[in-house]
């Protein structure tokens, strides 16, 4: 009998897993997909918000594509329970699906600040496609938008909101913006850049309640003046979608604890993406990395293993980039490691900042901020990732980098980072182009 693969979640991890199964399998297998939403890419929703792309552009798999992969779909359905002894998954409509192996890739959901009025009209999250539609309907030219939370999510849609002609105010509980992406100096640079570009930023403020005020929203804080606005976007964090798995016998800490092949404590149950607590490439410790590249790599590793090709995962690297008003801010790896040897340099006249973190003679973390058209920045973002990803021994070029943090290229090339990178692949073979979509065997 053909192996029955069950994929729960149609996001990046699930899509990559299905595609890799079809790329790797030697014998025909059955794939069933359970997904609450029609598969789309969350990464591109900001471009849908600013009307750069049409809604049709966000979808990652058409019905035709899924048919080509011979995937049986349960779209619009959620998994409600998993019986790991009987190998059966139950859906919210009562459907029972038997599987031989299964991938849990149910992702995460937006969380709103727990204040009165947080669920009222005109208060949005921006995470799912449905939520994006809500925000689109709520913003016109001149709309005053208050974004609650100054983290990565709010920064990904900041440009879009401004380009729609809205007036933007950002309020943040922490003393500074981007607390999980850049350090204090970097945050200060980005914050002053934003203010210079007409964005109001208030840090260190605790939202107390949101009230309706004659068609507008009134935000009250535990201290300081209130804000009257037209729309509120809550970008106050995400949580993993794992409640449905409680009591199923799957070992869950921050996420589902997985081994180097992304298997949970139940060997035929895999986890990938935001719900998986896998290996951090730099520290080797278990961590949840709720970012797109991790979901993609996790998904491919799971797909290969499900298809019978044992592939171990080296671990995921935290990488993030946001552009706000033509200023790029990116960070890599253990950029906030207090034990690392750090060197930083700020060039205020160029709005450029670097922080490099070393462990021994390896680069283990980096922050880079600079204007999007500044060749200093654009030349170096990828190379910093390469240095952190490979962990090449820098030797004498460590001191060179410490003296010249704005000249990464010399150290990158002279440390022969390219030699280390060339044989590296995630699946132990060259990747296939997305256009070469494999068909079901």
């Amino acid at each position, binding site marked *: 009998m053909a192996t029955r693969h069950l994929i729960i979640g149609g996001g*990046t991890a699930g899509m990559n897993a299905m595609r890799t199964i079809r790329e790797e399998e030697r014998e025909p297998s059955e794939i069933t997909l359970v997904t609450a939403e029609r598969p789309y*890419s*969350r*990464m*591109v929703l900001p*471009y849908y918000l600013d009307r*750069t*792309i049409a809604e049709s*552009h966000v979808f*990652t798999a058409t019905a035709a594509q899924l048919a080509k992969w011979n995937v049986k779909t349960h779209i619009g359905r959620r998994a409600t329970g998993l019986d790991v002894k009987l190998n059966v998954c139950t859906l919210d409509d009562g459907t029972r699906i038997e599987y031989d192996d299964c991938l849990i890739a149910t992702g995460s959901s937006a969380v709103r600040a727990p204040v009165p009025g947080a669920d009222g009209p005109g208060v949005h999250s921006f995470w799912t496609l449905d939520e994006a539609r809500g925000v689109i309907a709520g913003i016109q030219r001149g709309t005053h938008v208050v974004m609650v939370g100054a983290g990565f999510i709010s920064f990904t849609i900041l440009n879009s909101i401004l380009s729609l002609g809205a007036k933007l105010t950002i309020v943040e509980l922490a003393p500074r913006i981007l607390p999980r992406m850049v350090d204090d100096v970097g945050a200060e640079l980005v914050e002053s850049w934003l203010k210079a570009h007409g964005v109001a930023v208030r840090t260190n403020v605790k939202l107390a309640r949101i009230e309706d005020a004659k068609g507008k929203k009134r935000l009250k804080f535990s201290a300081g003046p209130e804000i009257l606005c037209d729309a509120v976007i809550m970008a106050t964090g995400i949580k993993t979608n794992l409640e449905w798995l409680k009591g199923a016998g799957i070992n869950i800490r921050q996420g589902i604890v997985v081994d180097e092949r992304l298997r949970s404590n139940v060997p035929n149950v895999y986890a990938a993406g935001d719900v998986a607590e896998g290996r951090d490439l730099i520290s080797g410790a278990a961590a949840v990395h709720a970012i*797109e*590249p991790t979901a*993609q790599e996790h998904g*491919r590793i799971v797909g290969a293993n499900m298809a019978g090709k044992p592939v171990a995962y080296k671990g995921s690297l935290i*990488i*993030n*980039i946001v*552009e706000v008003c*033509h200023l*790029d801010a*990116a960070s890599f790896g253990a950029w906030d490691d207090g034990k690392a040897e750090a060197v930083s340099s700020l060039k205020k006249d160029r709005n450029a900042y670097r922080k490099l973190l070393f462990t021994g003679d390896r680069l283990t973390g980096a922050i880079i901020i600079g204007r*999007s*058209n500044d*060749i200093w920045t*654009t*030349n*170096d*973002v*990828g*190379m*910093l*990732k*390469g240095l952190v*990803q490979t962990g090449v021994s820098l030797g*004498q*070029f460590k*001191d*060179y980098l410490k*003296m010249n943090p704005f000249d990464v*290229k*010399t*150290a*990158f*090339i*002279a*440390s022969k980072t*390219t*030699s280390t*990178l*060339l*044989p*590296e*692949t*995630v699946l132990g*073979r*060259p*990747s296939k*182009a*997305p*256009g070469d979509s494999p068909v079901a065997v």
Partner: protein
Amino acid sequence: MRVLKITPERCTGCLRCEIACSYMQTGTYQPAKSVIRVSPFEGHTSYAPYTCTQCAEGWCMTACPVGAITINSAGAKDVLDDTCVGCKLCTIACPYGTVFYDTGTRKAFKCNLCGGDPACAHACPTAAIEYEEVATADWLGDFARERAGHVLATAGAR
């Protein structure tokens, strides 16, 4: 597959490759938009061009959330402008630092081997850049290590 074979010892730093590349890729003579970039070594007494290796993993291609990077007929990873939304994920996923972002078009751009007829190799007057059927390699590593190391030593760096 044919690749850009770089012989750094032959490079004179004339930047013709950058000019040719930017013209072919963007229609403008603008080295800042070239996807092959010449770097100075040994205190600006020697130079070498650096560009995409068309690596096996294709980190840019696998990272793209919308499948906007594909493999063209020359075997090069190539950005499909109509599909790219400009999210920049490929620019930080590429560990070689050879995927760029055009602030004018708001798209990513990279070496696509000019579809199999690379302008940089044509433009290079000293054959420092050749388009050949060889395995790609770390063309610059030893060259840069020797020359940059030499500068460090004379500068008294540890």
